[in-house]
């Protein structure tokens, strides 16, 4: 409401905003919107987009007609012989793995990021500590893949040159092939993700914490507040909007996650996620219809967060 006043103070032609917007709109329409629509169209087609998906149905097999690619995308990973096999196969399917990734990775990256942001604010070598935590973020997924493949290295000889197996055998356990043993391998990949993305969360949360006026913190210290009270009753509530932004960003990042899995296991040994499965269908199997259907399903998972973002955006605007 107040914004309208601001705008009316300034004399603005109706075309001026569009001049500022035009370059961005043109580029996004050409490189994102149009290809997306094209992709949605392909998801109802056959492998190379030359006929309807319904033509790929076979006699005596389940068929969803024009939605056949979606039937494949949703059910093909499941072993439907009994309720138990469905349950078991779900938890190593791309969807089950996605749930593990979401729960574990978002919790730990945002949680660690918040705690680190507050803790390092209190020490003298703050910049150094933050640089070290953030450093993995500067590394490519390919580079991180090399680093962690070496950490997880499973020596077939007596010597374990991977540090994790060296510690493990040092404690008297048998060495483990961390990247191929289910279900531990998915969690090993998630560790790489946490290692990489905690710095991202910490950086955003830290700058929010630092934007809290020093006077507020000092005043509450004079009033006798403990560090934990300052953290839970002052800092966290004030930066709550930033925390929501960080969580949303992380959820979206995890849903799109591709590189770590692709580089480290290629989606084998039950570590597939939605994006790697999509890649396999599209590029390895050349099944454009199936691949694009998985892409569309991925978008559907993301829609709730889009709605959440927009709600927050609208609320923010009306409060201005």
């Amino acid at each position, binding site marked *: 409401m107040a914004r309208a006043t601001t705008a009316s103070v300034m004399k603005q032609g109706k075309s*001026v905003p569009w001049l*500022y*917007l035009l370059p961005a709109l043109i580029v*996004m329409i050409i490189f994102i919107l149009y290809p997306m629509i*094209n992709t949605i169209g392909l998801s109802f087609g056959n492998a190379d987009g030359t006929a309807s998906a319904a033509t790929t149905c076979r006699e005596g097999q389940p068929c969803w007609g024009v939605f056949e690619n979606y039937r494949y995308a949703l059910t093909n990973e499941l072993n439907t012989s009994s309720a138990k096999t469905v349950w078991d196969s779900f938890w190593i399917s791309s969807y089950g793995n996605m749930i593990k990734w979401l729960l574990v990775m978002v919790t730990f990256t945002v949680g660690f990021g918040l705690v680190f942001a507050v803790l390092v604010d*209190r020490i003298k070598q703050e910049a150094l500590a933050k640089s070290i*935590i953030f450093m993995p973020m500067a590394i490519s997924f390919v580079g991180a893949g090399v680093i962690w493949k070496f*950490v997880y290295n499973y020596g077939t000889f007596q010597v374990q040159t991977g540090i994790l197996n060296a510690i493990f055998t040092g404690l008297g356990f048998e060495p483990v092939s961390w990247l191929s043993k289910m279900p531990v391998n998915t969690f090993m990949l998630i560790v790489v993700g946490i290692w990489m993305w905690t710095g991202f969360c910490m950086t955003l949360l830290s700058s929010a914490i630092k934007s809290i006026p020093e006077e507020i913190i000092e005043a509450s210290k004079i009033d006798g507040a403990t560090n934990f009270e300052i953290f839970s009753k002052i800092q966290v509530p004030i930066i709550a909007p930033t925390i929501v932004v960080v969580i949303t960003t992380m959820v979206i990042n995890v849903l799109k996650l591709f590189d770590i899995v692709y580089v480290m296991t290629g989606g084998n040994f039950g570590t597939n996620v939605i994006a790697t499965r999509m890649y396999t269908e599209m590029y390895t199997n050349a099944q454009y219809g199936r691949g694009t259907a998985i892409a569309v399903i991925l978008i559907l998972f993301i829609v709730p967060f889009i709605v959440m973002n927009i709600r927050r955006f609208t609320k923010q605007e009306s409060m201005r």
Partner: protein
Amino acid sequence: MTTATMTKPLSKSRKNRTPSKVGTTIGIVIILIIWLVPTIGLLVTSFRPVALINTTGWWTALNVDNGPVSALHPDPNASFAEKLGTRFTINNYVDALTGYRGTSTYLDACASGTKPLGMNCNLSDLLNPRGMGRAFVNSIIVTVPSTIFPIIIALFAAYAFSWMDFKGRYAIFAILVGLQVVPIQMTLVPVLRMFAGMGINGTFPAVWLFHTGFGLPYAIYMLRNSMSTLPKDLFESAYLDGANHWQVFTKIVLPLTMPAIASLAIFQFLWVWNDLLVSLVFLGGSKPVMTYQISNMVSSLGAGWHLLTAAAFLSMLLPMIVFFALQKYFVRGMMAGAVKG
């Protein structure tokens, strides 16, 4: 006045040592060690000879008497420093930079007089298409424009979304929020076909265009978040002084948005530099970038840890320098200071 005199000694004491402070410091140090160990392992390994990498753990690098006979110092009574000197090497980096793939090392092979296949044994080998030196140059050519283009375009759009009234503002921004999360795989095939029609597949402009398009939604979203938190008073007083949008944009908004631009530039730079998929699809082996080169080595060399670790560390160098150099933009209170002034 009282606030000013009070704040100084207090903010000093904030970083002083108290009992809980020592605990905090110890906790942080443990976390930092855990965070660093994987990378230290990579770094140490990248300087060790092949024979030692595969037979001893990198954490035993200072034990100069282990490993296979071939890796031991010929004189068992040599000093620790002498032995240590033979346990580390820069050969892995030379081999990775030049793309040497033989059983010896690039330097030894050249010193022996027989040039390795396809090598000239001079500086031109740094531009060997199989090496990380050439890939480094290609990565820079890809990354710099792919960082600058989207930020410039996004600045204008973000300003419009933050401080201009126009029809469909909410609707367009809602679409933009949605586009931000579109997975890259969702658009690769149609764009690839489009580029094939334009005949620019395998060229740098193809990658620049794709990264600009894909970087925009997040860039606009982030810059708008930053710009829209600027205090309204700033704008009102500027408008009352007769400033137009262009002046407000260039003289007030851009300087105040600098921290956001810096962090956005860091993230976009890292994103493009570290991307594998886009370079793989639009450039491929014709203009290999660093990530492409490493992933190629992973699949073609299997466990060639000496080359992989050196190559991986080379690919990490520039992003780290950029991050450390731009850290000053995260300086606290820049915004608050500007408003106060």
